[in-house]
């Protein structure tokens, strides 16, 4: 009886931990690509990690935010799967030092204030010295975790393709 209760508790814990398992794999994939972590913000439901894109001539950093939406409980996992939104933001940093450039940047900041992110699309934003491009997608956690190397390769391909898409949008803004 004791073992049965423990196994039940363990299964529930593993179900709740799927987003953390994916985040761990994201950290490892990014690390293998030469992008170490430089910031963690993590609590029970949402995790954000910032990666330093060392030696990337264009990007300064990438933020990845994972927000668990379904599948924490047995019923919702069975009905809806284990879904989370994955938000990827790539940042270009321009070291603005010319007052004329600063004025131009301020106007763009203001124009971007009321823009909202669109699911699947890429949103561009200026914040002081940074130009940010963001996309958001819904992922099924089970497609990438607990599947060994094929799952990791799929995750790697997903991250690389999405970051490349963001880089393409940001390239004209690098000064």
């Amino acid at each position, binding site marked *: 009886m004791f073992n049965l209760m*423990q196994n039940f508790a363990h299964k529930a814990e593993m179900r709740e931990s799927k987003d953390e*398992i994916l985040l*761990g794999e994201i950290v490892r994939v990014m690390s293998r690509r030469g992008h170490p972590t430089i910031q963690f913000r993590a609590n029970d439901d949402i995790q954000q990690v910032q990666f330093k894109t060392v030696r990337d001539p264009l990007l300064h950093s990438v933020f990845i935010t994972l927000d668990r939406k379904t599948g924490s409980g047995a019923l919702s996992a069975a009905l809806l799967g284990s879904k989370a939104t994955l938000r990827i933001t790539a940042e270009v940093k321009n070291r603005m030092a*010319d007052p004329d450039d600063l004025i131009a940047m301020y106007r763009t900041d203001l124009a971007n204030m009321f823009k909202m992110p669109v699911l699947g699309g890429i949103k561009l934003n200026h914040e002081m010295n940074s130009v940010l491009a963001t996309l958001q997608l819904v992922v099924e956690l089970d497609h990438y975790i607990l599947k060994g190397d094929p799952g990791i390769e799929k995750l790697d391909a997903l991250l690389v393709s999405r970051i490349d898409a963001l880089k393409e949008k940001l390239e004209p803004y690098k000064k």
Partner: protein
Amino acid sequence: MGLPRLPRPDEVALHIHSREGGRVGPISRRGLQRQLASGAIPEDARLWMEGMEGWGWLREHREALLADLDAPSVAPRSPEESEDDYLDRVFGGLVRSSWDYLEEHRFSTHIDEVFLGAVITSTLDVGYSLIDLKSDGTHHYLRFEDLQDQSRIVVRLTHLTSGLALSKVLGQRSSAVIGYGEKLGNVSKIMTAIRAEMKSGYIRDPEPGTITVDGDLSSGYVYCQVDLYLDIDAYVERDYTVHHDKLATHIGATTHALRKYLRGRFA
């Protein structure tokens, strides 16, 4: 041997080595200029940057590396230059040197998070999965599980020297509690662990090497954990290079010792 390219003034790309000062860097060209002026880097130091086949003499590249550094901020106003352009140029120089400072300050603040990511990567590489993560920027908590044998590793990390001044004086240090847990599946053994946990509670400041015990009746896990102080500089270089092999060996040795203790005590 020539330089493969001239780094940007604020780009941290130069590694310096001297008999007196040991290895320094990577630093930017502006950083090199400051350290040469203060005497922290001697004239007979060696230099290396990515793309060079080996270490070269700093004196052979000194002129090229420092040539244009003062020009944007301190060069006097020429007759052709308007006052507006001149003041913009002076302002630009002030902003650029501020970026130098900020980059160094940021690195000293987030090096623990570089280390945390390295702990995750190294632990995943030996077959564990991350199952819990909590972080407020200074205090970090990680829990891993080997999904085959259900053993667990727990890491609690606190950055002790956040901030440039403190890290310059003491180096980058952190306190770490590393734990290893197994599911015992036996009520009496877990109760023994919980009693041991209560005794562990009387240890106010565990010293390095003190192994404390923790038990969780609901999950059936018993953990043994040890307090350590780690020198993050030994694992993370200034250019964000991480010594994963060294880190994996150190975590592996610690969990090996804890596993032996746990099995010896509760088997």
